[in-house]
């Protein structure tokens, strides 16, 4: 009882003192303060996006570096210049870069934000496809749009480098013919458009083109590259053979621990990329899916798309299918 009384006294004593903290009622300008929050956050998001564009540029360059036509297109080499269709996703070790020499002949201008879809169309030379935003969220989100310039590059195969990389990867069973030495593969890609909203990144470009010598054993070369990238032999062979039409290969860091599976989309088959570990992806890997992300890569007749979003799979596919 005494304890209760004492506590009650302390309670009152403290309340009396805290009551001194009352201050006159203020009348803030709420609308101008709201605009201040919006302005601050807009500036902060632009700074973050600028960093994001840089990372995306690197990711896009990675796509370019690993884009090759498939074995089945060898018959079409009479055309020499072919459009890449379809896309395969793999987790690879960075050592894959040491297996060949790549140099830009036309270095793409870095990704940068533009004021809107019209400005993006002017820079990209094509009208960017926008998703049906009502399917993304209600109310419709605000989004940023950026463009990375067109680029062209040349891959040069050095047999000695490729053999050394295979040896480092422990893939000593892979045979590299001497005829591959000094083979050049040329690649050109359209400008890439990035659309970024909260929890939503959409990347699109026109299908890239490659030019290469007739008769080059491309499937075998892709398989060798994948082995350098740490892909086990059966999987590397399967990927090389499964590219049914000229296809691009998107390499993500092996430590991203991704899992991929094919899904049916309106435009055909797409690839769903998932985070296999539930862990946060490696820093700086914008295209690596986070634990709650869904990532889709697919092609239509006129576009190559990559979509990363925190929507669930069904909604992500629906959004993807809303694109032309």
């Amino acid at each position, binding site marked *: 009882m005494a304890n209760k009384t004492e506590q009650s006294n302390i309670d009152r004593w403290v309340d009396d003192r805290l009551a001194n903290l009352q201050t006159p009622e203020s009348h803030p300008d709420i609308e101008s303060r*709201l605009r201040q*929050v919006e302005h601050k956050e807009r500036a902060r998001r632009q700074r973050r996006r600028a960093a994001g564009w840089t990372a995306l540029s690197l990711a896009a360059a990675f796509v370019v570096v690993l884009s090759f036509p498939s074995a089945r297109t060898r018959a079409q080499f009479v055309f020499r210049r072919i459009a890449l269709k379809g896309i395969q996703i793999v987790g690879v070790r960075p050592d894959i870069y040491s297996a060949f020499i790549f140099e830009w002949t036309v270095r793409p201008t870095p990704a940068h934000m533009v004021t809107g*879809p019209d400005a993006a169309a002017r820079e990209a030379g094509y009208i960017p496809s926008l998703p049906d935003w009502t399917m993304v969220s209600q109310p*419709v989100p*605000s989004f940023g749009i950026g463009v990375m310039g067109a680029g062209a590059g040349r891959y040069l195969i050095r047999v000695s480098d490729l053999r050394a990389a295979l040896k480092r990867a422990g893939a000593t069973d892979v045979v590299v013919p001497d005829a591959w030495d000094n083979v050049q593969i040329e690649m050109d890609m359209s400008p890439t458009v990035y659309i970024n909203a909260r929890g939503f990144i959409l990347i699109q470009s026109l299908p890239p083109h490659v030019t290469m010598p007739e008769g080059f054993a491309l499937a075998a070369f892709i398989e060798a590259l994948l082995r350098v990238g740490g892909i086990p032999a059966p999987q590397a062979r399967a990927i090389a053979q499964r590219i049914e039409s000229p296809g691009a290969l998107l390499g993500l860091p092996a430590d991203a621990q991704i899992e991929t599976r094919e899904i049916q989309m309106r435009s055909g088959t797409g690839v769903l990329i998932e985070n296999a570990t539930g862990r946060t992806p490696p820093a700086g890997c914008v295209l690596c899916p986070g634990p709650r992300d869904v990532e889709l890569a697919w092609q239509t007749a006129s576009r190559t798309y990559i979509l990363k979003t925190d929507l669930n799979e069904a909604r992500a596919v629906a959004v993807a299918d809303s694109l032309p």
Partner: protein
Amino acid sequence: VDANTGQLADLSVSRSTFDFGAVFRSEYKRMTGVISRIIGDPARAEELAVEVFCRLWRRPNVQGPKAGGWLHRAAIRLALDELRRRSRREKYEALFSVFRPQSTPEQIHLLTEKQRQVRATLSRLNRRDAELLLLRNDGLSYHEIAEVLDLNPASVGTLLSRAQKAFRQRYLKLYGQQD
């Protein structure tokens, strides 16, 4: 860019159905009051309240039914941090002047002096104790305090008693029994 019009859009619209603008309009003044009461500086309180809402903007996971509680806690924490910064700078007199036109000079002096003492005491308490006292003084129930501070509701009473004792001890140590 607004998805419908292609124009630069109102960034108060977030991806989810959470209406940031509506929450801001309904809560900003209250948060300004919470902060102002702690730091005694209405102008600075408005700035800190803006910072609280910027943090809410960046935290989609708290944009929902519990946003009000999260805002309250964030406002108190930001205000206590500010109080500690000011305490370190030892500029109480200049910073805590709250003038009431209807008050006599003696009342003003007495009031600001008491406020200064309370704020100085709060700035020296551990943060959890100060938060408990301020939330309780804001009129929150034990259950609401538990929700805001992520505590077991059954332990709020005990923790609050300890916080009150800690406040009293600290206050008396600093200023003695004055009344």
